[in-house]
């Protein structure tokens, strides 16, 4: 998408609202649905990757230092990662407005 869909006029829509660009759901910010965001305590993290496995939105990615970090552009704040973390290294905290 060249611009957010809230700016499209009816004349610009493709016939039948067909999406011509494969995989453009990756441009859809689901991160603004959340009220809580996951925060990782690196001292407790054992790099098991369960947060990455259980995340229903595949928001978690492995960073260069070997930690799984949630991409807040996609993270909906469901808290499954925090629930599944075997060492309680993830806590859900209220996301401040300026961070969205």
């Amino acid at each position, binding site marked *: 998408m060249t611009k957010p869909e809230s700016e*499209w006029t*009816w004349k610009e*829509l493709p*016939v*039948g*609202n*067909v999406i011509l660009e494969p995989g453009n759901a990756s441009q859809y910010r689901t991160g603004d649905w959340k009220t809580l965001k996951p925060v990782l305590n690196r001292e407790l993290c054992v790099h098991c990757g369960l947060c990455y496995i259980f995340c229903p939105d595949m928001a978690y990615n492995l960073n260069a230092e070997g930690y799984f970090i949630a991409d807040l552009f996609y993270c909906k704040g469901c808290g499954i990662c925090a629930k599944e973390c075997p060492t309680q290294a993830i806590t859900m905290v209220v996301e401040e407005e300026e961070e969205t």
Partner: protein
Amino acid sequence: MGKRVGIEVSIAAAEAVKQANVDVVSAYPITPQTHIVEHLSELVANGEMDAEFFCVESEHSALSVCVGSEATGARSFTCTSSQGLALMSEITYIASALRLPIVMIISNRTLSAPLSIWNDHSDVMSIRDCGWVQFFTENGQEVYDHVFIAYRLGEDREVLLPVIVNMDGFILSHVIEPIEMIEQGKVDQFLPPYQPLHRLHPDRPVTMGAFALPSIFAEAKKAQEVVIQSSISKIIEVWKTFGVLTGRYYNPIETYRSEDADTLLVTMGCFGETASVAVDQMREEGRSVGLVKIRLWRPFPFEEFKKATLHAKQLIVIDRAISIGGPGGPVASEVKSALYGVDGHPVVYNFVAGISGRDVTPTDFIKMIDKAEIEIEGGNKEGYEIYGVRE
């Protein structure tokens, strides 16, 4: 000139589907549409028609298959009646919003209850706002012709909409009529192979039927509304091209002895032929009566309708469906909308007649005209009644 043959209208409709080089037929048999789907099944089984015939388990699936096949670029056909249409209604809205030019014949039949297999327009009126172009036909020839017209129109790049061809169940579907078949060469000339704008193909992935947020839904519907409203000029153009090819010309609003008439009957579907007999009889008696027939139901041809009727003193609108709890029949409702705000417009008197296939003869039309004229003269300017109900 094509060969003129005596043929059952349903069989002629199926022959038209064959001649239109349809790739996919997906339909579930239901009275009174059955003969169309049976004949298509035979044509495919006998190798006379090169198409996939899908034996589906319901009408919901019948139209769903058509949505899928049409999305791949295959010319697709379905047909149904009554409860079957009700069951596929969910998918009718999807087909039009996805802009898939499927063609469907509806052999119009009453919606239950009471359970009835006979003809009226309650089935199609239940999906009136589904976004398909909707034609009403008056005789077998029109049904046969409109299969080709529907594909040519629907598949036009400026239109890309599904099309419904309504034919009255039994009264048209099960009668043998003289029908002029069009030579295959002429059909092929009129109806080139379908060239889809977008289609499902692994070489070029696209997404059809995606979810839309409130922030874009209204824009999507506006685009759909504009395309069907503006398709009217294309519909007229396609009819003209067809007329040049076959000598049979069609119009959104057809008129019969209406130009100088004070009283106009307004009908839709096969009522038109019977009503024209009534008009002839009354003209012989010196009555100023004419007939206006609505062929194009969606998009409703407001301008053409006004042009055909504004000179009259009164319109007697005969509906074949009831809008329960509403202002009368659905056709009268549209007619009143068309006339609203026009100074000195004709008075509209509305009858609902012939529901569930009850016969409406020329004498009945004359009785309705007599009754309406007396009522209007007596000051009843908003008359609405169900004709012939025993009190």
